[in-house]
């Protein structure tokens, strides 16, 4: 069993068009490294040069927004479901 990751439409260019990919790792950070090894370029889209999760991206582990659970240090395990989404916001 692995961790299932849902990929937003625009990032499917990195996953051969697949909506869902799977990976492994003990933390979100390790999972993203594993995904990047399989789908080159994915990490650059999610993690900034400073090594933080991009602020315009929302990542959920199961139903929890990782902003509230330790961001890239959030623990993940086999059977978890991870969802990546664009943040939708703005202002005048």
């Amino acid at each position, binding site marked *: 069993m692995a961790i299932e990751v*849902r990929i*937003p*439409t*625009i*990032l499917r260019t990195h996953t051969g068009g697949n*909506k869902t990919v799977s990976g492994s790792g003990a933390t979100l950070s390790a999972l993203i490294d594993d995904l990047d090894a399989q789908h080159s370029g994915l990490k*650059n*889209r*999610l993690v900034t040069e400073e090594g933080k999760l*991009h602020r*315009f*991206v*929302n990542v*959920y582990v199961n*139903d929890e*927004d990782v*902003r509230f659970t330790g961001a890239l240090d959030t623990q993940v395990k086999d059977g978890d479901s991870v*969802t*990546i*989404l*664009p*943040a*939708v*916001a*703005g*202002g*005048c």
Partner: protein
Amino acid sequence: MLRIDRATYDAIVAHAREDHPDEACGVVAGPEGTERPERFIPMLNAARSPTFYEFDSADLLRLYREMDDRDEWPVVVYHSHTATEAYPSRTDVGYASGPAADPRTHYVLVSTRHHEKQTGLVGDDVEFRSFRIVDGEVSEEEVEIVESYLFGHSPTTVVYD
């Protein structure tokens, strides 16, 4: 070009009027991969602010799960400006150019800056404009309003015996 049906157009404008002076926001979903805005989904502005809007993070997840289950994507993401023109702000452009934001989205901006106390009255001046935002570049597009979306687009297939 954005082609949108009258009922959806009116629903977006009505939502903007209703939430004035706060910004209103929402999406119009359509079959994934198409340009057809078919299902109007007003969202709560979690910021409840006259100068900022955001989808609550849990609402966002629910919305995308639901669209995913129905093989839809957000054809239109709309929001209102309540004191400024219907043109994407720097913040709008920042979010729309985010690494997970799809540049195929139509960004609709509605401005209620002129309608003041006349909220909801016929004849209020509400601006409605649509934009593409790609890598920080904003380009306005034409908006075509069709009476009924389902019958408004071509080609239709006519089979003769």
